């Protein structure tokens, strides 16, 4: 049995220790907001926070997480940076198909939490691991700046 701290709740799961967190979240716990995109940490769709830092859950075995706090898209709105990013995404109509946006928002929220006024280079560094096939990058960039400006 593995005990995971997810979005402030303790969850006990009976899964192999090498099972990536992505599939535990989606298929075992039913938190489907975190997305499968590539399975090799190339696209960022599966991004979640571990103690506030962004990680690719498709490459994170549950056995190594320990008591670190997992935050997913379903609860990121409870953090100040996450709420700002979500609001900016709606204010600027960033989203198209939306499939990658859970990961985009998780990466952007982590950036904003650690850097209250990121510049273009900071945004490139933090967000280059998140692919958007619809091409919402223009508005993702604007959205992060918009969120940073908001009170």
């Amino acid at each position, binding site marked *: 049995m593995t005990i995971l701290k997810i979005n402030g709740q303790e969850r006990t799961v009976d*899964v*192999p220790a090498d*099972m*990536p967190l992505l*599939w*535990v979240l*989606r*298929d*075992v716990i*039913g*938190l*489907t*907001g*975190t*997305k*499968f*995109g*590539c*399975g*090799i940490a*190339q*696209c960022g*769709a599966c991004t979640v926070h571990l103690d506030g830092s962004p990680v690719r859950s498709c490459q994170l075995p549950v056995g190594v997480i320990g008591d670190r706090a997992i935050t*997913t*898209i*379903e609860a*990121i*709105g409870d953090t100040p940076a996450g709420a700002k990013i*979500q609001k900016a*995404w*709606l204010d600027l*109509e960033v*989203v*198209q*198909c*939306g*499939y*990658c*946006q*859970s990961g985009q*928002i998780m990466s952007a929220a982590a950036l904003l939490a650690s850097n209250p006024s990121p510049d273009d280079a900071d*945004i*490139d*560094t933090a*967000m*280059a*691991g*998140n*692919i*958007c*096939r*619809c*091409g*919402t*990058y*223009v*508005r*993702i*960039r604007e959205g992060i700046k918009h969120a940073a400006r908001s009170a």
Partner: protein
Amino acid sequence: MLHDRPDPSPASTGGSRGLSRRTLLGAGAAVGGGLLLGIELIGGRSAEAKDPRPQGGATFNAFVRIARDGAITMIMPAVEMGQGTYTMMATLIAEELDVDLAQVTVEHAPPDQKDYGNPIFVAQITGGSTSTMGWYLPLRKAGATARAMLVGAAAAGWNVDPASLRTESGVVHHDASGRSAPYGRLADRAAAIPAPKEPILKDPKSFRLIGKPLKRIDTPDKVNGKVQYGIDVMLPGMKFGTLAACPVFGGKVRHVDDSQARAVPGVRQVVVLDDLVAVVGDHMWAAKQGLAALAIDWDYGPNAHAMQEDLYAAQAKAANGSGVTAQKVGDAPAHLKDGTVYEDEFELPYLAHAPMEPINGTAHFKGDSCEIWVGTQAPVMAQEGAARALGLKPEQVTINNHLIGGGFGRRLEVDGVVKVARIAQHVEGPVKIVWSREEDIQQELFRPIYHDRLRARVENGRITAWHHRVTGPSIMARWLPPAFQKGIDPDAVDGAIEQPYDFDHILIEYIRHETPQVPVAFWRGVGPNSNIFSAERFINHIAHQTGVDPVEFRRGMLKKSPRALAVLNLAAEKAGWGQPLAAPSGGGRAGRGIALLAGFGSFLACVAEVVVPDDGDVQIKRIVCAADVGKMINPNTLEAQVQGGTIFGMSAILHGEITIDHGRVLQSNFHDYRVLRIDEMPRIETYFVPSEEKPGGIGEPGTVVVQPAIANAVFDATGVQLKRMPINRALLAKGAKA
């Protein structure tokens, strides 16, 4: 996109007619959050939870239901895959119905060609940038019809002239007496009134919603993880599976040793079909591990020798044959015999769609019926494809459609639905099958390779004779056979025929050359993607050869197309065309290019600025797009589609290439099938020409027009004429031999 409008065969429409729409909507409503979205989210996460709401409300037509409590439901004939079509379509109905978008809930339409077939295809298909063109009038009429019936019911109840009533935000008012009635109270009586045959539509001057940058109705649940795509379906007792089809197209399973796979914890079943193997388990991880543990002996079949260069060579050879005439004006061959004649040829690669949501589907086979949960651009095809594979009648297959995590043409194909149904046939209870990214890329149906050969004669600074020969496979002949007539695939020549330029003599030919070794399908930009690319590259090449500025050269040939001329001029002006480019701060060669598109009912011009460093890498610095899309329904969405469309095109021209090696696809995931990332992004500027013309399409034009603009800019920077896409950096390195 289609120039022919074939009548659908009875076989392709009859299937769903026997099933009442209400039954299907009932099944749909039961799926909960994934099917019902908007302001009011109905149902729980469990797909088999019952809709707590009383069914339906009064039905006014195929698109509008109004319940007694005033809840307004709109049924969406096209599917939402990011392009904003749900908001667009709901806006059209709401405009004429006189309700606000905030009052509306939308539902996916069930498979039903008769009610929900796009008038342009006469089929229930979302593609080809046709949703706005096809639905602009029918959905406004649906809203206006329902409004007229509501007004009629109020007038009869109050015994007043319907003309003395007005409507606003879902309420009928009689100002003279101060009476008013909300739609919900009138709905049952109104729905019983005969629908007016030709409802009166609003004068565009009085539009309240159309033309405004209204907020999208699908986005709030896309920022908090609540939205359900097909891949997110969860059913009680559901198992999870993944699959491997033969890596060589057309190959078969010879033998499978599954002893090690069965030992993987959580693996429940191995399903072996003639051309694929699936592993089913308690979760995707077990299924993935199980699949990796299989020892599969494949019979690769006849395509195991297919090599990319051979495929290109065979197509180039086919281009030497004679083609079928797709468009003929005057006598181009006679005028290309002498004088100043230019010629060129271009090759376009196979491309994967690579939507972020990998192909997937969930199915519950129950012997004499099958229920399927999937996101599809072609619900009727999905239903019929699954039914055929299972030996069922179409009405025995229920399709629950979902929001789509990226389509781009990939989900116009139902190969995935068919595979899921075939696997589910052997599984007890519901099973969700998810493609790994590798399987998704390698078992694609790709944008075809095309070979374009062009010749043109120049007299007095303008092109007078034009010959474009398109050689490539026909997608349409397989996908919508009635559209393939007299040897011409209307998609394969789209963009080659009916150009905006006033050439005196035109010959457009099509040579159908199939590559059965590699399955092909529509890809964002469809036919114009390759045809406009080649034409705009060629025109640029001729302008350069004749020493005329490329914008000036095009201007001189656009006298019969003022809308094309206007976007060309606007893009050139906004981009500062003619002013020298600043020397790149980090070194390298700077260049600027332009391209023009008339297609999808719209007009776009695009200017690209690039820098090519000594190593031949291409950095796109700035994109300026000018567009005339006719009457704009939602300017915000239109801008987003130009941005996203151009980025899709940039991925293609910078990185997009699928390579066949011994019948297999070499690429497998985003590390070797690269798409644009945020740190490669240029500045993108979008400008619209105000217009009251009929609305055109916008999902694809940006993808098409940006590619030749970039290639022309690369030529401007380096002087290298690239003949085959994507951009080959080795040819652009300083000192490289062309």
